[in-house]
């Protein structure tokens, strides 16, 4: 029975039910993709039209205000974001690259501790960001005693995006062909000289792209910083790494939580600024990737 039915069903599948069902299926698939696109367009259009009336210099020249949405700005949040992200970059990029070099160039994969490190990085990438906020609150702010400061925020965000930097850097390093290393070693270079003078320069575009993408994730991150003092009302720019701070996503969140409509317009305008910063960073990342990526 089964043997007999196979060819018949094959013919059926191929021709009989084909035109209508096939076209319908294809349409449904394309519609799903289009729906994601429509959602994205709706989101961008909504934010832009909502924020347009307040998208002017007041936004970056004025400090936040809880009374008057007309004169309120986001200057302390913008400088705060710059402080936090710069410090995050200083901390996380060298650490991430170093870890990636270790895992790709030195680590003996048969050793258990190297496998633990690898598994651990995969796992870290999937931990919810709010849990990093708990880590920042319990260990960095309280136990180590750095308090609710720029540096606590930077270390927390740095740890959050570290797996992204490591994974991207590893891929970039792995893409450098072994023949480059062998050539360098054959000329008498030590392993570190080979890495520093051959492997790293060749993989810098990939590493830079990954690092920028990691930082753009950190810029938009609000959940962990809610727990680290960023929600308090800040009317001054940070003057050092131990200063109190707020950041753009948190300032946006504060304005969303206000009930008055004027603050929602302000939130939308600040979102446009945040999205523009992200767009700029991502464009640089894509440009770097296209401009400097080598094909071996």
């Amino acid at each position, binding site marked *: 029975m089964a043997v007999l039915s196979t060819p018949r069903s094959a013919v059926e599948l191929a021709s009989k039910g084909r035109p209508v*069902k096939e076209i319908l299926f294809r349409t449904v698939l394309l519609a799903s993709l289009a729906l994601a696109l429509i959602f994205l367009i709706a989101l961008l259009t909504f934010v832009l039209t909502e924020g347009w009336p307040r998208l002017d210099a007041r936004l970056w020249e004025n400090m936040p205000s809880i009374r008057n949405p007309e004169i309120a700005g986001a200057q302390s949040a913008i400088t705060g974001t710059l402080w936090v992200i710069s410090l995050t970059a200083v901390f996380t990029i060298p650490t991430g690259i170093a870890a990636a070099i270790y895992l790709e160039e030195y680590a003996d994969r048969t050793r258990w501790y190297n496998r633990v490190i690898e598994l651990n990085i995969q796992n870290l990438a999937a931990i919810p960001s709010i849990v990093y906020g708990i880590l920042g*609150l319990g260990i960095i702010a309280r136990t180590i005693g750095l308090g609710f400061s720029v540096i606590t925020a930077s270390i927390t965000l740095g740890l959050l995006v570290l797996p992204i930097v490591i994974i991207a850097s590893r891929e970039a390093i792995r893409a450098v062909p072994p023949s480059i290393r062998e050539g360098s070693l054959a000329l008498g270079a030590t392993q570190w000289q080979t890495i520093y003078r051959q492997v790293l320069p060749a993989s810098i575009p990939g590493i830079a792209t990954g690092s920028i993408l990691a930082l*753009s994730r950190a810029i938009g991150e609000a*959940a962990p910083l809610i727990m680290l003092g960023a929600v308090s009302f800040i009317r001054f720019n940070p003057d050092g790494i131990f200063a109190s701070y707020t950041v753009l996503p948190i300032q946006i969140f504060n304005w969303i939580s206000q009930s008055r409509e004027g603050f929602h317009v302000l939130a939308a305008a600040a979102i446009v600024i945040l999205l523009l910063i992200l767009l700029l960073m991502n464009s640089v990342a894509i440009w770097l990737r296209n401009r400097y990526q080598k094909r071996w």
Partner: protein
Amino acid sequence: MAGGDTATVPGTPQSLARSRPRYGEMAIKAILLIAALVSVATTVGIVVSLLEPTIKFFGEVSAVEFFTSTDWGPLFEPPHYGVLPLVSATLITTGIAIVVAVPLGLASAIYLSEYAKPRVRKFFKPVLEVLAGIPTVVFGFFALSFVTPLLRSVLPFEIEIFNALSAGLVVGFMIIPIVASLSEDAMSAVPNSLREGSFALGASRMITSLRVVLPAAFSGIVAAVILAISRGAGETMIVYIAGGGQPNFTLDLGQAMQTMAAFIAAAGSGDVPVGTVDYDTIFAVGALLFVMTFVMNFVSARLVRKYREVYE
């Protein structure tokens, strides 16, 4: 082993390496290893920071009450510590998100992997990447100020300003890129010979996609879905902004609900004094969330390894 004891001829790599230990090289390797260990320290730090307050919390509050009571109000007098309303809210919003993200993400992946011409792919892939790169606070604003009013004007039944439905829907769109891109990776890894075999037997493109490619990529797709679930369950800002702040043990999607992550954010944003039960509560809920997502990630990784179809 190669070279071994006989490699005493001057000039071979072994004899050079042995002649002079390079302390600089060893120091560099040690520094790099320390950098790699930062990630391990992060995990240890998370576990340690969760463990101590959680143990203290269960010294004050009975575990039976925590896991079985449906009353959550740690700041009330007398306080109630039943975590079920937070868990149910988390499951409901994540459930809505999955109902949105799995069909849409999977259909997108099938289209991109099996149907789309290179030009179309080049257009749609960045769309998904942009969607993945939008900060969650922006999604939250969109959910509260656009999706909720839209639902209120369209739906035949009443929904509150803060509600689980709108939050869950937007979380769903947020995780579409995870489902789509990981599933597409899995489907692209299915070798062409399988598709060609199927076409040769007379199967159409739809049948080939659904009965050959999809089953062959199944483990990767399941892993993608589980990862998306864990992202949705841990999502904070969208559910905090659009889902509301009251714990609510209900199945009514039109009502406000507080998820576990939203509770952590809400309680953690106030300056809770260290050493109080209120402070420890944040960590106890955090520990539960951590364990739930950890188990999902573990299962996902396991599934991939166990059921992976290996092609040459």
